[in-house]
C-alpha cells in the first residue's frame, strides 16, 4: 500500500464536519501519521475470515410483539427546536 494521502476536505465533507482551515491542516498531518502506523497491517499476511464481532452469534430475532415506546412528547423532549409537535429543521424546499 502506498503511503496514504488523505484528502481531508473530502473526508470532512463525508463526515459532515465544517472544519476550519487550521483544523484541516492539523488533522491532515496527524491522520497521515496515524495512518502511517496503521499501514503496518498491509505488511502482514492476514489469512483468516473477517470477524465483525467477537461472539459467534448471528441473525438475532425477537418475538414480533408490541413493546412500550416513547410518547410523542417524550420523543420530542430533547429536540433543540420543535414546531407543531415535530422536529424543526432548516427549510429544504424553496
Amino acid at each position, binding site marked *: *500500500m502506498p503511503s496514504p494521502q*488523505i484528502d*481531508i476536505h473530502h*473526508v*470532512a*465533507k*463525508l*463526515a*459532515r*464536519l*465544517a*472544519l476550519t482551515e487550521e*483544523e484541516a491542516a492539523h*488533522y491532515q498531518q*496527524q*491522520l497521515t*501519521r*496515524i*495512518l502511517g*502506523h*496503521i499501514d*503496518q*497491517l*498491509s505488511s*502482514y499476511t*492476514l*489469512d*483468516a*475470515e*473477517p*470477524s*465483525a*464481532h*467477537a*461472539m459467534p*452469534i448471528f441473525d*438475532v430475532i*425477537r418475538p414480533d410483539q408490541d*413493546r412500550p415506546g*416513547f410518547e410523542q412528547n*417524550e*420523543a420530542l*423532549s*430533547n*429536540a*433543540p*427546536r420543535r414546531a407543531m409537535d415535530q*422536529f424543526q*429543521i*432548516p*427549510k*429544504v424546499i424553496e
Partner: protein
Amino acid sequence: MSLAASTISALRQRLASKEITPRDIVTDVAKAIEAQNATIGAYLSWDVEKALAEADKADLSQPLGGIPIGIKDNINVTGEPCTCGSKMLAENYKAPYDAGAITKLRGAGAVPFGRLNMDEFAMGSSTENSALGVTRNPRDLDRIPGGSSGGSAAAVAGNLAIATLGSDTGGSIRQPAAFCGCVGIKPTYGRVSRYGLVAFASSLDQIGPITKTVEDAAILLNHLCGKDLRDSTSLDVNVPDFTSGLGRDIKGLRVGLPKEYFISGIHAGVSARVNDAIKKLESLGAIPVEISLPHTDVGVSTYYIIAPAEASANLARFDGVRYGHRSSDAKDLMEHYMMSREEGFGPEVKRRILLGTYVLSSGYYDAYYIKAQRARTLIRQDFEKAFENVDVIVSPTSPAPAHKFGELKEDPLAAYLEDIFTIPVNLAGLPGISIPCGTAEEGGKQLPVGLQIIGRPLDEVTLLRVADAFEKA
C-alpha cells in the same frame, strides 16, 4: 471511617443490622463530593435530593438495597443529564429512559447517584478529552486519572463513591482503575446490556464496575448481567454467582505469561511490580506458563481502524435535529449538519470520526476495514489457542503509571500505543480485570500499578477467584 470510604459488602452488613440507613450513606457520599469534588473533579453533576428520595424508598431486602452507585456520564438514567463529556449533549439533554444496566441495578435495590466525568464520547485514556472539566488522580493531583472512565475511577479512589459504573471499549475501565489504584472489570462482550450506553464502538463497548475490592466487583457484576431484548448482542446465557470463586485457593491454576507482553519499553517500576505479582501467584500455588500471542503487535492498528470506523457510523446520529447541539447560524440543511457537528464535537472526537470515515470510504474499505477484521480473527484465535493450555493470562494493565497532565495530549499516536495490553481483550471479546499490585516510583511519587488478568469467554468466576486470592494474600 466515613461511609463514603466503605465497601458494598461492609455497608450491606451495617444496613442489615440497622446500624445505618441508606439515607446516611447517600448523605455521607454527598458530603464527600461537596468537600472534594472541586479538587478531584470526578463528578460533572449530582442530584442529592433525588438520590435521598430513592434511598428512602430502597428495598433493603434486595442485594444492593440502598447502595448508591456513581454512573459514568454516557449511561442513560431517566431524567438525568448524559453529557458524554461533550458540548454536544451538555446544553439541554435529559435522558428519557434508563439504560439496561441501570434497570438491572435498580432491580437489585441500588440507587444511581451522580454523573461521572469521562473523555468525550469515551474517546481517550486520560479524561483530558472531556469538554466539561478536569478530573485529577486522587493519588497525585498533578496526574491524569486515566480514561476514558477517569471520573468513575477517581471517585472510587478518592472515596467520593462506594462503587461506580464505567464503560470499556479498549481499556477504559481497566486502565483508569490501574492508574487510580482500584479494581475495574470489563466483562465478556455481551454479558451486560449496552441498551442506553451511548455507543462508541458497538462491537467492543461493554459496561462494568469500578470498585474498592474484588468482592465488590463480583457483587456488582451479579446485578448487571443478563439477556436484554433491547440489545441484540447481549448474550442469552446463564449468569453464575460471580462471588462463587471468592475465598477459594488457586493451587494448580495455570497462569499464562504472554512473551510478547513482557517486552522492553515497559516502565521499570511497572515491570518490577508485575513480576512480584507473578511470584506471589506462584507462591499461592498457581503455575506460570509462558505463552505466545503472536498477533499482539497488530492489536493497536486493528483497534484504531475498527473503533473509529464504528464510531464514525454511531456518531452520525448527532445531527442537531432530535437531540444535542444545534448551530444557530446554519442557512440550509447541509450547513446545519456540518456546523452543528463542528461546534458540538471536540478535537479527539473529530479526529476519530475523520479517521473512521476515511477507512470506510470508497476505495479504502477493503484495504483497512476488512483487513482489520481479518486481524481481529487472528487475535481472537491467538487467545483461543493460549487458553487450551492456561486458565488465565496476566500482564501489566498499562505499560506506564499515570502521566502528568498534557504529557501525551499533542501526540495522539503515542497515547494510542499505550493501550497495547488492554485493546486485544476487547477485540477478542474476553473478560479482563485490573487489580492494584503495588506502586512504582515516578517523579518522586509512588503511583499505583495495575495487574491485568484476562479470562476465557464467560469465565469471570475464575478471573475473580484469582484476583481475590491475590488481593487477600
